[in-house]
């Protein structure tokens, strides 16, 4: 007998059952999704939401010390109509926030529904405001750039005085894109070295009543700037504590520039240490006669010309190289273009467009050309570090970053011997530090005002390198118009050289540089 076809009711039952099965299958799938799968996705989404919004990143020194950070602050607004007693509210808010009570009282009595009470108050002040128990107060979260250490202000720079403002000077401007993207900047600066340099400069500037002082500590193998300090006399007109004079100002540095003339002469074998030159009665070139500030012997050897800093002798040595060779040499050392680093502050060097014999002679002893101290130390580092190019940087680096060979290693070695001779036998005696063989060169340059060199206005400097047998660090210090007890006592040998020695004595242990091995031996008679 054939099966009966399903009735309408039976078909409907089957369809309804099918729908129920589908619905509950969906419920089962959704259950598994919520209980197992979605819980994993939710935790990751929540974790992402838990990260703080991106603010301007920190700036740190090479050891991780904080130099700049965005801190939370609040702008305080009030709705005066919510106050029970506007005068009392003005008084309480003025006491806590430090704003003018009169201004607040006038604002609360006016027609405005919404009054700005104070901008950028700290979280501590916010707590105090909340403890007043006043209604109608609103806090708008904001950020403020905070600089815990002011010692490196000319290098760090600053941002606009608004929340989230961009950098307008120094590292803040140079690395603005990186900091805005939330990536911290680890600088090459060592704040221990920075403070030591700054303190020594401050004491010496005050001692000699100098108009300004500056210093740089540079790693000659990596180009890292460990410290850069600029100080000015606050009583002088035009005082600007944020100006980075070591990177942004050109100076005629004087005799420290002789390093380059001697290096070129040794590189080209136009002199040896013992080559003699007549210097006693000055050196006549064209219608000019170059004299020395101090009395010099009639004839001097090249090494003594550098040690005693004779301009007449150096001019003759520079002329052996000639204008074209000298210009190319200085160009190769980077002294004829501005130095590019991570900070925007820089200055183009000033040098003569017509570079003849007279210019060659004067540039040889550091006059007639103006460069920034940063450009000078970079070139000097290239002379002493084996003769290889370096690029100065304010970011922490790892490893040796010396580049191409720009002078022979032998020349660099001879120059190091000469610089050590300057300290042991010449004008740099006061820069020596027991245990650290310091080499260096003094510079006492008469300043040029209105086209005339002024005898009693000096720019004294000292460029020190240590340890001289295997140089690692270069210390450059500069004093603008120091005043000594006499004209001689204002020279670099008595002002800048001891300053450099003092800095080296303090920073060498911080730099973990062991001195030459010494063993104290008691003299006879001691037990």
């Amino acid at each position, binding site marked *: 007998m054939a099966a009966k076809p399903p009735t309408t009711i039976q078909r409907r039952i089957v369809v309804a059952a099918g729908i129920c099965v589908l619905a509950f299958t969906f419920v089962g799938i959704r259950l598994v999704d919520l209980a197992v799968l979605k819980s994993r996705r939710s935790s990751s989404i929540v974790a992402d939401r838990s990260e703080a919004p991106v603010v301007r990143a920190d700036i740190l020194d090479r050891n991780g010390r904080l130099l700049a950070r965005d801190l939370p602050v609040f702008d305080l607004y009030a709705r005066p109509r919510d106050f029970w007693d506007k005068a009392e509210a003005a008084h309480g808010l003025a006491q806590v926030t430090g704003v003018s009570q009169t201004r607040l009282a006038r604002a609360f009595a006016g027609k405005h529904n919404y009054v700005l009470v104070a901008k950028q108050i700290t979280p501590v002040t916010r707590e105090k405001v909340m403890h007043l128990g006043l209604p109608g107060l609103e806090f708008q979260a904001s950020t403020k750039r905070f600089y815990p250490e002011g010692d490196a202000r000319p290098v760090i720079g600053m941002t606009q005085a608004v929340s989230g403002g961009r950098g307008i000077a120094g590292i803040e401007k140079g690395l603005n894109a990186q900091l805005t993207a939330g990536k911290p900047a680890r600088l090459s600066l060592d704040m221990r070295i920075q*403070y030591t340099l700054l303190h020594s400069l401050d004491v010496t500037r005050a001692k000699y009543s100098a108009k300004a002082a500056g210093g740089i500590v540079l790693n000659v193998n990596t180009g890292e700037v460990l410290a850069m300090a600029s100080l000015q006399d606050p009583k002088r007109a035009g005082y600007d504590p944020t100006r980075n004079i070591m990177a942004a100002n050109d100076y005629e540095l004087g005799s420290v520039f002789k390093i380059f003339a001697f290096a070129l002469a040794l590189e080209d074998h136009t002199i040896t240490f013992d080559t003699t030159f007549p210097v006693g009665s000055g050196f006549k070139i064209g219608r000019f006669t170059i004299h020395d500030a101090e009395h010099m012997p009639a004839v001097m050897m090249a090494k003594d010309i550098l040690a005693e800093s004779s301009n007449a002798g150096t001019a003759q040595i520079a002329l052996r190289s000639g204008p074209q060779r000298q210009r190319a040499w200085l160009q190769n050392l980077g002294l004829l273009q501005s130095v590019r680093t991570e900070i925007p502050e820089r200055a183009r060097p000033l040098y003569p467009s017509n570079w003849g014999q007279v210019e060659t002679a004067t540039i040889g002893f550091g006059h007639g050309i103006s460069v920034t101290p940063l450009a000078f130390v970079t070139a000097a580092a290239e002379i002493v570090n084996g003769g290889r190019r370096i690029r100065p940087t304010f970011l922490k680096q790892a490893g040796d970053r010396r580049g191409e060979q720009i002078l022979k290693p032998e020349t660099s070695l001879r120059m190091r011997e000469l610089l050590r001779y300057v300290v042991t036998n010449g004008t740099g005696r006061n820069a020596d530090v*027991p245990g650290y063989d310091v080499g260096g060169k003094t510079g006492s340059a008469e300043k040029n005002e209105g086209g005339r060199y002024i005898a009693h206005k000096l720019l004294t400097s000292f460029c020190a390198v240590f340890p001289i047998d295997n140089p690692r660090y270069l210390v450059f210090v500069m004093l603008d118009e120091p005043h000594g007890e006499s004209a001689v006592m204002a020279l670099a040998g008595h002002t800048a050289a001891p300053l450099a020695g003092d800095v080296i004595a303090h920073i060498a242990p911080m730099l973990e540089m062991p001195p030459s*091995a010494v063993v104290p031996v008691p003299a006879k008679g001691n037990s």
Partner: protein
Amino acid sequence: MIARVLNFFFVGLAALSCLALYRVSENTRVANMELASVNRQIAQEHSTMSVLQAEWQRVANPGRIQKLAQAYLGTNDTPVMELSSFEMLPRRGENPLDSNPVQNASMTAPVNGNANLHLVVANRN
């Protein structure tokens, strides 16, 4: 009869599934709220730590400590002269000079108050 029992069983199972689904959903919502609250607290603590770190750097500034040391401890800036490093010191029982030759130092370090003390350099290579 069996079909009816099975029917009641699966209807009951469906009802329990709905309840379980609702419970899981509600627990998730509550957990998310608690998590958000904890994350706000963490953010607040991070902010406080950030402020404290900055404040610590400010009070630990070498210039500030120097001023305090001079004002309250009477200490002054003294010259530093590191004569040797720790690694160079001879160990107990060692001959400090071994067989190395003794050389004169490049200069004599000033020794205040003890003019009889001389310094020499020992080559320890």
